């Protein structure tokens, strides 16, 4: 296992349903047999108004405003399918800041 799908579980994302989304995603990832991806919670990505937010790392892909109907496409992307470009809507400078923080190992 060497990839992470980090799902924000701070107040705002939670209020937008990120707990259920994380659980749902964990089940779908397991059902798909993606043993190299661990879905786990994250403290905050600083994009609360765009939540629920999740970041696929080290792939460096940010899914914003995730709904349960997006999860199949996300799992496909994790399995090597096309990127879910419609969920890629975060300001590049914030993305870069967060990716660099993740590079230092803040999980």
């Amino acid at each position: 296992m060497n990839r992470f799908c980090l799902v924000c579980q701070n107040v705002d994302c939670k209020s937008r349903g990120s707990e259920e989304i994380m659980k749902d995603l964990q089940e779908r990832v397991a059902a798909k047999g993606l043993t190299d991806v661990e879905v786990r919670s994250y403290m905050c990505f600083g994009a609360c108004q765009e939540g629920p937010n999740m970041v696929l790392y080290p792939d460096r892909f940010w899914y914003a405003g995730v709904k349960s109907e997006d999860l199949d496409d996300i799992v496909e992307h994790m399995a090597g399918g096309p990127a879910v470009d419609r969920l890629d809507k975060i300001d590049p400078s914030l993305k870069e800041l967060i990716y660099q923080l993740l590079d230092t190992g803040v999980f």
Partner: protein
Amino acid sequence: MEGILFPRGVPEGLEGLDAYRARGGYQTVERLAEMSPEEVVAKVEASGLRGRGGAGFPTGRKLALTLECPETPHYVVMNGGEDEPGSKKDRVLMENVPHLILDGIILAAYAVQAEKAYLYINHGYEAATRAVETAVEEARQAGYCGADIAGSGFSLEIVMVAAPSNYVAGEDTAALEVIEGKDPLPRQKPPFPVTEGLFGKPSLVNNVETLANIAPIVNKGPESYRSFGTAESPGTMVFSLGDEMERPGVYELPLGTPLRHLVEECGGGLKSGKAIKAILPGGPSSGFLLPEGLDLPLDHDSLREAGSSIGCGVVKVLTEDDSVLDEVVRIADFFAQESCGQCPACRMETNMLAALLKKVQAGEGNDALVEQFGKLIAFNKGKGFCSLINMPGPPIESAVRLFPEEFRGA
């Protein structure tokens, strides 16, 4: 040493109405009709008084801005939330010299033509609340507040409000929210309270110590006030020393007094007798100073030039045995905990900084990780409604700069 607020520079117990009058208190209020609101504003402007709540904004300017707002009514709010860790000056002022504060509130309210003053006091401060309540009652009986003060035609109602004791509740607009019956959440600024404050009306919100300085300025004149302090930072300031000192407590000193005088003469040096490693001269949001910083004058500009700030005068001294890293972790945790969470950038920044610092504390520090502090701080600067988002920056960045060895990996 002679003081402006405390006659001998240190609190000496509750000063009652008679004792306060005996040192010239309420003399302007007793002849209020003889001085115009504009004259009161002009005196405070001439005094050069800067807000003592941490930001150091010119108080006279604030009074003038509030007075000139055509919209009515106007309000005055005394901010006695005092939630800064280690700060006890506002509590001590309220417990010891409530009439001095009240005299200032009445004069400030007259200056901005406010009809109501709200006294917002940390709800944990029972003795201070009682002292202020008693003073308000005594002043009312003496005709210093209430209807038609000293035949001037000016009336002032005073209302007490209990402040929640979390950190952001002491932010000026969060105080306004609480007084309006809402949760203590800072508002986006602008608009500033001087134009749109309490109930959307022009409001003067000042820290307790700031208001305590108004009566001495108006009663004795700005020239007398300026005989204390420096040209840019006139007057005195009340500093808080913690339990690491031989004599903890609050001390009123003229601005510009060397930090060494406060630490060594007033505080009696460190209780442990150890050598000083670092000083945080203005509370947890100020930058660290090295021991040679003891020779700096305690005033707004000198400390800013030295990469720190005077804040609200809470001085913390670290010994040679203390870890600056541990102190910075405590500070980062404090801000992460106290961030109210309504601004995404602040929530992310304060949580991230605390998490990064804990990695360093766990011996997992490295150059790439330490570099992230500055990036995070710069990225988020000014992106919150209030200034909490900017607060972890100075202590963390100065600690990394002055004590790099503590931030390297194990």
